[in-house]
């Protein structure tokens, strides 16, 4: 285990170093574009020039007009950024000490984790003292599934809907919440703490569906809520809203 974590660190650092090395590309009409070397190497032509060492640290002349150069440059840049993002991983650590390595993009389904990463406090391992390993593994499963379905573009911020024409994961979601009530509640707590809207909506709706149609007494019993009404007060509220009991 020690050696594997070492290699992870090394490769990350290599990535970092590569990322900071830059080259300058100069178009035929004299405009210069400074880009990461790794980005420029998307072009096989440039890659060979660099590898052959046939350039100064400054400029490569390209016989392409400015506009074309800038557009192809920007395409290259964004592709590379996407690539880097996709393979980047973070480690989440549950309250009971278990570590889960996940793609950063999947972890960012959680707004809480997203902010930690963006604030630069990630350091590759994020401790989650409020979430046990059993729940965390389920949460990760949810995020992976929803991230896949949403595609590579944005973090999926689709909120849960039982309308299967608008939510292709309705069936999967319905199966996902078929768990015992304690797990369901823990999932709610985790979704709230980690700020994962879709999961929070899904789990809350599941609890709401359990409540529908019950009497106030049944609600108190199922969810252990103390009745702080006096009998007179309760009778009055009930009388005012009698139609809702029919």
């Amino acid at each position, binding site marked *: 285990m020690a050696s594997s974590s070492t290699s992870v660190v090394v490769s990350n650092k290599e990535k970092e170093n590569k990322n900071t090395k830059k080259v300058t590309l100069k178009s035929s009409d004299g405009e210069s574009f400074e880009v990461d070397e790794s980005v420029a190497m998307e072009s096989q032509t440039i890659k060979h020039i660099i590898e052959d060492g046939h350039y100064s640290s400054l400029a490569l002349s390209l016989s392409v007009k400015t506009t074309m150069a800038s557009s192809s440059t920007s395409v290259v840049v964004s592709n590379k950024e996407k690539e880097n993002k996709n393979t980047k991983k973070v480690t989440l650590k549950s309250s009971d000490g278990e570590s889960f390595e996940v793609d950063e993009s999947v972890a960012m389904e959680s707004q809480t984790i997203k902010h930690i990463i963006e604030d630069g406090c990630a350091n590759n391992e994020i401790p989650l003292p409020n979430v046990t390993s059993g729940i965390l593994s389920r949460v990760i499963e949810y995020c992976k599934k929803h991230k896949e379905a949403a595609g590579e573009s944005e973090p999926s911020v689709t909120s849960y809907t039982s309308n299967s024409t608008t939510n292709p994961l309705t069936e999967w979601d319905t199966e996902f919440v078929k768990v015992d009530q*304690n797990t369901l509640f823990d999932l*709610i*707590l985790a979704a709230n703490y980690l700020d994962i809207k879709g999961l*929070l909506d899904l789990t809350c709706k599941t609890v709401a569906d359990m409540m529908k149609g019950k009497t*106030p007494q049944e609600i108190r019993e199922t969810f*252990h809520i103390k*009745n702080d009404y006096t009998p007179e007060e309760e009778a009055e509220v009930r009388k005012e*809203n009698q139609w809702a009991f029919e």
Partner: protein
Amino acid sequence: MLDLEYLPYDVLPDILHGLPVKSLIRFRCVSKSWNSLIASSAFINSNLTRSHSDSNKLIVRYLDAKPHVERYKLIHEDNDNNDSSSEQIQDLKLPLRSRLLSHFQLVGSANGLFCLYDENHFILWNPCIRKYITLPNPSVTGFFPCYLVFGFDSKTNDYKVVKIAYQCVNIGYEGAKPPLVEVYSVSEGSWRVTSAGDSYPPRITIRNWHPQGAYLNGAVYFAAIDWGDAGFVASDWGDASSIVLSFDLGDEVFRVISLPNGKFGLDIRILTSKFKGLLSLICYESRHMGEQYSCSIWVMKEYGIVDSWTKQFTIELNMLHWKVLGFWKNDHVLVQKMQSDGLMLSLYDPESRQVKNLGFCKSTCCSYADKYVENLVLLDKPNGVVS
């Protein structure tokens, strides 16, 4: 242990928002803290956006001639069945009668809340929580025509009733005084005279005696006429043109939306409506004397761009005495057909041109039909009169 008390306080509202209104009202009896949560304005406001109104339910308002009553029904459309059965129709009772020997005038409806009016007496009614309030009287009264508007200001999460009181017999005349505009806001709980009349464009009259403005995106829209330099005799109508007049509930300002030249003559009956979230016009045009009119639906595809007004489709119904009530289920048209013994409410599909019957009622006319929206608004207000 399923102990809700262990849930962070902000999660309980998320759970409760998933419940239908009837359950929420019942659960006011669970405990005092549940009661104050459910009746809090924060919960009421956020509940609207999470509302899961059944998209298969319509609320319909019928008017009877003898006796003069208004009736409200909930009609449930059964997707599989082509007939509607009586258990799909539910009566809703309006808890009070108009003081006059007639029915109220429906000013408008927004998010499931209805505004009704008779003789300077205004009511706001939320049928799904069976609650109404009576508004205090506005201060502006007068003999001259007035128009009433009702809508929802999404910027302030507030419902407003607007009284536009003309100050002369015919506002279309040159030099006519602008109207006085008074606004009631539910959150303020009172009427306030505004300077909105200053933005009322000169020489514009609203068409139709009891227009029901189309409400969308925080403003109400009316079919109107811009008299320009025209006179009022038909032969002088040359310069007059049809336009749409809007009143924005947020900034309380009137604006004009132009219509393409030559397409909407004064002889065409025009009503404003909302089609697929866009401002639309329902136009009835007589073909020849005595023949059934044709009805076309126009939509302004790009807001404010005159050239973007497009004719979406024409409704060809092979029958007499029908009218369009509005739109439902995306692009389907709600139609009222008058029959010898009553009314048939139907749904017309413009693509297939098929008509599906939704429900029959022994009434003289149907004044309103729209999707049923569940909303907790007014829950936190005391019952009945607002002083």
